[in-house]
């Protein structure tokens, strides 16, 4: 093999702590290396051209680039060598930036380590072989998990582009958190007025199939051809018959049931249509509140239903669907703020969350939009907002900023004044975070025009005194302890990954961070991709964000899916397992360990053997490590290739 080595300076990113020229010089002496140089930016156009030039000029048959992580630019350089006529797998990378120059300043040690990493790459490259991809057909259908505003946007965009869309929503209605909001910042326009029509579009779009009150049970397969199992949870109402007339909800005797849509701010019936604009507008029974399920006596709704849709014996249904791509848009939930015992831990009825306050403000809410205290129904005169409850707080393991609380609190303070002109709002904040178009102006308006008092400091204690709540905080700008008598305390509770998000991530085989948020492919350049091909992200499941950003990501994820499924055939990755039939003894151990069922039994000259289904194999190599004969080898990561790297390190 004739190998060329290119040591990238990456400006000063690498060259600042690695002597690149010295590494290139050392590399020239490695076996099979016929050309070695250092280059300012290997990934730039002149950098790539230089590689192509060198391949041609020195008749190179293999290339090593030592630069950044292969997770960043391996595809870039593979394309470059391909342009020079080399097979793209006759290329190796040594990561001397993330793993060397950025984690230490010792020039001598870094230079030495870089040279060793290049030696490893060369040793492996010498055993590389040409690999060619296969092609396979794709299913032109997309699964959108989550029917909040991000999922709705992704679904509509994909459906408008002609793709079939299957939407799965855990709740009985789509709409997500946005459907619960009264108004949106910074325009203070009505949330349901802008979301409602889009929800209707989802229901009516010929390309969209909606499964509400459903969850993704299992996912198998791979990009282009996922097999998804959906559990449609029993609502005890046959939705093909239910007309959403609401008669059952009126007659249901269990009127004191917890109202999930209204965040517990009001009561509802046990058979319930979550809210007037619900999509689908169908009734469902909440079993934990239903008299029939609790006491065995009732059955009023079944008697009253004009279409006979109520079916107490209804069971969950399992539906299977094939899709080519998946968009996860599972959103967020509020963190459990009751850990803040100093704010009452949920014991004081007039200490509520901001989302509960949205329901009090909303005309479709339990109070018809009249702001009334939950305890006694009085109109509050003094309303205290406490920011950063469960955000930026290491003591409850929520060190991150939720990002949207500053803005919605400003909005709620404005709405408070609109609803109750004689009221006074107080906002305890640590920093006002309002980077967005028109956002900071908005937070000025609430103080200047609406006269909300902003107090820079945290609140240490809220306790009831008579029928008021005493709020004890600090005003760090005055440098003193302060107290406010409040009628109502609204906690700007931070968000966290939706309940069960990690569990879904595991089904989708995507990564998630310590807080359950899904990991994007690259923090800058792949914001809606994941490291699992064919799975994309939209909205707060990736990290908390406001409505405009969620919508933007919904569209971005749709664009990615549309791009993916615009092709009829997809290229399969040739870095997959291959069987050396001569060595295979047909023991079948590989079949039992393969997570993708990509290996099957076969026969050669009457002897049992195995073979790999090439488009199913995902290239994990578990079979390779299991095979007692070394007969099944993962291309591009064979035993010999990896051992060559080990040996390059240990033997010199």
């Amino acid at each position, binding site marked *: 093999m004739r190998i060329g080595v290119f040591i990238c300076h990456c400006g000063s990113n690498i060259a600042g702590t690695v002597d690149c020229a010295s590494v290139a010089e050392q590399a020239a002496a490695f076996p099979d290396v016929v050309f070695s140089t250092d280059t300012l930016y290997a990934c730039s156009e002149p950098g790539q051209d230089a590689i192509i030039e060198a391949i041609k000029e020195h008749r190179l048959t293999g290339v090593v680039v030592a630069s950044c992580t292969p997770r960043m630019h391996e595809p870039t350089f593979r394309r470059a060598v391909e342009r020079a006529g080399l097979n793209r797998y006759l290329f190796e990378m040594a990561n001397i930036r993330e793993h060397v120059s950025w984690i230490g300043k010792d020039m001598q040690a870094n230079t030495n380590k870089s040279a060793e990493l290049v030696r490893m790459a060369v040793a492996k490259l010498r055993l590389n072989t040409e690999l060619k991809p296969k092609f396979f057909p794709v299913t032109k259908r997309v699964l959108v998990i989550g029917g909040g505003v991000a999922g709705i946007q992704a679904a509509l965009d994909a459906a408008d582009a002609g793709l079939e869309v299957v939407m799965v929503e855990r709740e009985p209605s789509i709409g997500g958190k946005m459907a619960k909001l009264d108004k949106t910042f910074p325009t203070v326009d009505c949330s349901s007025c802008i979301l409602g029509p889009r929800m209707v579009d989802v229901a009516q779009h010929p390309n969209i199939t909606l499964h509400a009150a459903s969850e993704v049970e299992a996912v198998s397969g791979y990009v282009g051809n996922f097999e998804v199992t959906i559990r449609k949870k029993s609502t005890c109402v046959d939705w093909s018959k239910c007309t959403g007339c609401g008669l059952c909800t009126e007659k249901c005797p269990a009127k004191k049931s917890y109202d999930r849509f209204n965040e517990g701010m009001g009561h509802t019936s046990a058979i319930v249509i979550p809210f007037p604009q619900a999509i689908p507008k169908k009734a469902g029974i909440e079993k934990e509140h239903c008299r029939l399920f609790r006491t065995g006596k009732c059955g009023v709704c079944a008697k009253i239903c004009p279409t006979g849709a109520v079916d107490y014996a209804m069971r969950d249904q399992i539906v299977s669907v094939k899709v080519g791509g998946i968009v996860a848009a599972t959103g967020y939930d509020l963190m459990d703020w009751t850990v803040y*015992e*100093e704010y*009452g*831990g949920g*014991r004081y009825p007039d200490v509520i969350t901001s989302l509960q306050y949205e329901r009090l403000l909303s005309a479709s809410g339990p109070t018809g939009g009249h702001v009334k205290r939950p305890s006694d129904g009085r109109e509050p005169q003094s309303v205290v907002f406490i920011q950063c409850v469960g955000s930026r707080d290491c003591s409850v393991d929520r060190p991150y900023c939720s990002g949207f609380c500053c803005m919605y609190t400003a909005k709620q303070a404005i709405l408070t004044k609109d609803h109750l002109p004689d009221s006074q709002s107080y906002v305890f904040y640590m920093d006002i975070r309002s980077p967005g178009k028109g956002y900071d102006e908005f937070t000025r308006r609430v103080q200047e025009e609406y006269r909300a008092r902003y107090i820079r400091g945290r609140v240490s204690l809220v*306790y*009831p*005194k*008579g029928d008021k709540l005493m709020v004890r905080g600090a005003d760090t700008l005055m440098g003193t302890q302060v107290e406010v008598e409040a009628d109502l305390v609204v906690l700007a509770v931070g968000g966290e990954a939706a309940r069960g998000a990690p569990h879904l991530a595991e089904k989708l085989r995507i990564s998630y961070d310590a807080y359950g948020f899904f990991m994007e492919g690259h923090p800058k350049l792949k914001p809606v991709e994941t490291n699992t091909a064919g799975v994309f992200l939209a909205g707060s499941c990736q990290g908390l964000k406001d409505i405009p950003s969620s919508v933007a990501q919904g569209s971005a994820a749709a664009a990615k899916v549309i791009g993916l499924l615009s092709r009829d055939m997809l290229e399969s990755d040739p870095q997959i397992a291959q069987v050396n039939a001569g060595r295979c003894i047909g023991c079948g151990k590989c079949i039992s360990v393969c997570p993708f069922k990509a290996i099957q039994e076969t026969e050669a000259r009457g002897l049992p053997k195995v073979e790999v289904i090439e488009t199913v194999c995902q290239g994990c190599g578990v079979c390779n490590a299991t095979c007692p004969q070394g007969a099944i080898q993962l291309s591009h990561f064979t035993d010999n290739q990896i051992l060559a790297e080990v040996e390059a390190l240990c033997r010199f």
Partner: protein
Amino acid sequence: MSSQHFGYFPGCSGLGTSLEYERSTRAVCGALGVALTEVPDWNCCGSSPVAHTADHALSSALASRIFAQAESVGIADIITPCPSCLKNLHNALRRMEDPLFRARVEALTQRPLRRAHTTKSVLQVLVEDVGCSRIRDAVRRPLKGLRVAPYYGCLLTRPGDSMKFDNPENPVSLDRLLESLGAEVLPFPLKVECCGAAFGVPARDVVPRLSGKLLDLAAELDADAVVVACPLCQMNLDLRQDQINAANGTRHSIPVPYFTQLMAYAFGLGDEAEGFAKLAVSMAPAFARMEGRAAAIERQEREAAAREAKKAGSAAEKKSAKAASAPAGGGL
């Protein structure tokens, strides 16, 4: 029960200002079968003033001598009624996990500890090791009708991370204990607020302000008594109640017994164990109100029971009538 044998550290105030806490604690533990062996010839725990002004090593050295004295009679686990002593004993053990700190302490005591020690409050032992159900079983005179505000003070559960007892912001162990005595326990939102601690002596405006707030709240809740677990809290709220009233222009007269005194009363252990005579603000009016309420509650209960019986009786009648008229075999 062998597991309920502890070393006992009364603390300096137990010999003076909190005599009644000390005596009632011993009596209650005795009644519940918790064996206490007083640490022989114990010294000051190295409590706040020493820790405050000098150095952790010095205050821990004083604590360490106490553990060494306990070792001399074969005891490793020490309990104390005083939260301030508890905090210092606890912090000493925690800090001595660091080998250098331990060496510094040993340089002062010249008596290295040989055993692993633990320390707990009397309250924790009564709630966790004895348990409320055994306490309930020991009650002879339930505190039915007594409205009490449980006040824990600031030290009992802090630091929460290492003390690992109850909830540091909203403890409920004392609530549960008092409930098992039959008392009506009021929600007392300032249950862990500071009373002014030892500042009663050197800074006179502190206690009226901080303890005054607590008494105001207790009065607002119409509490018969504020129940405490700390000698310093008790002294500030009870002994200094007149000072507080004078400073704030209030006229509170709320008795402030230790929880162990109420236990001794409920267990019927006698005047000496109860020690209510030692309180500055008398418990007598509170007990009088309690008895009045208890009588009213009992009357209501009797009436309700009678109504219930009547209802059940008529229902049974109806049922039997129905059963009689129903065809044979019509039952389930």
